[in-house]
């Protein structure tokens, strides 16, 4: 039933697809890290006209499927003259989707800093920027690193959704192979195996990181 020769022959193609998957994952993650931070700051803002729409945006994005958002970006944006390649649309959609989750992570990280730290900084007459740079961020960041690692893995596992907007990543590669050879067993199973190995190894990495951070 299982054809090893066929499996080996398609492996280079699948690895090519994996390359796109990884590129999309890391670009989207970088995008989410930055946008998520901006969203978190904007949400904390005391300017209501800024914080309220941002809050609504976060709630909306979190409550709707990534797939629907991707379709919206890929098919609706062009109507307004913004034509995107599948990769750009995918990175944008995936990144935006997860930026709302990361903004919550940042928020909880910042909220976990005791009020005394802000007060101490004020008592020492630190500027607002100085307080953030020297007091808040150094304390808020280490505990959220493992959480962000888990979101990175989550994004990696969500990249197959990008195949729906015709990005030829790992799953789409397998589908194309399947359509051409009429053999779905090996390509799709191999995609599963590749995902399992990569996400299992990286989740062990996150656990290790968490342990080390806790020891400090």
């Amino acid at each position, binding site marked *: 039933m299982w054809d090893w020769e066929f499996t080996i022959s398609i492996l280079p193609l699948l690895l090519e697809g994996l390359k796109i998957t990884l590129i999309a994952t890391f670009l989207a993650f970088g995008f989410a890290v930055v946008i998520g931070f901006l969203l978190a700051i904007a949400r904390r803002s005391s300017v209501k006209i800024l914080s309220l729409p941002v809050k609504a945006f976060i709630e909306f994005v979190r409550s709707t499927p990534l797939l629907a958002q991707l379709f919206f970006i890929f098919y609706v944006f062009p109507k307004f003259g913004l034509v995107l390649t599948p990769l750009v649309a995918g990175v944008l959609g995936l990144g935006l989707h997860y930026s709302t989750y990361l903004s919550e992570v940042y928020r909880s990280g910042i909220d976990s800093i005791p009020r005394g730290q802000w007060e101490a900084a004020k008592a020492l007459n630190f500027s607002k920027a100085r307080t953030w740079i020297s007091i808040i961020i150094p304390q808020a960041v280490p505990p959220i690193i493992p959480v962000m690692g888990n979101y990175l893995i989550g994004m990696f596992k969500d990249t197959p959704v990008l195949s729906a907007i015709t990005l030829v990543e790992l799953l789409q590669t397998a589908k194309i192979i399947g359509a051409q050879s009429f053999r779905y067993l090996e390509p799709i199973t191999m995609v599963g195996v590749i*995902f399992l190995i990569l996400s299992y190894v990286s989740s062990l990495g996150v656990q290790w990181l968490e342990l080390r951070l806790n020891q400090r």
Partner: protein
Amino acid sequence: MPFLLKGVVVTIELTIMAAVLAFIMAFIAGFARLSKFAIVRGITQVYVEIFRGTSLLVQLFWVYFVLPFFGIELSAMMTGVLVLGLNYGAYASEVIRSSILAIPKGQTEAGIALNMSPSLIMKRIILPQALLIMLPPLGNYLIELIKSTALVLLITLHDLMFCGTMINNVTMRTTEIYSLVLIIYFLLAYPLTLAIRRLEKRLSAGRL
């Protein structure tokens, strides 16, 4: 629009059936991971790691396109229910396990001191308390599950997402259709989000 509503019904059906399966799987796997038999724990661990490690959409494709090679042919709906249920069951089993472990040991000991049987302790002392801890995280998984039902479109189930795409192909009113699809999903998921937040607040305020 009525066409779209038909899709909503399918989405809700799919969500409910998958959620029930996920709940059952989560309970079985959650308890199995607390088993004193290493082999039971081992098998459950494999189940959980496979479903957590291999991307939901890949699993949908595998069941829909690969299983027929083994003579098992499932409809798109069945595939959706099965895969979503098993997938979310694997994730949620951790919630079940950790909630049960979160109940202080003193509760079990008090049960023993009152000469209760292990099953009575589990049923009347541990579970009622653990269920309260479980509710918010399980609710969050339910929201994720609703969102994930959209993926079943990609194996051509006629759910909300599919109907949206179909109408779009016919009418080309892309902006309206996809906006509407987004809004409907939001209306399905957001009330749940609010309910869970209220629950969480009440729980942390100590009304148990």
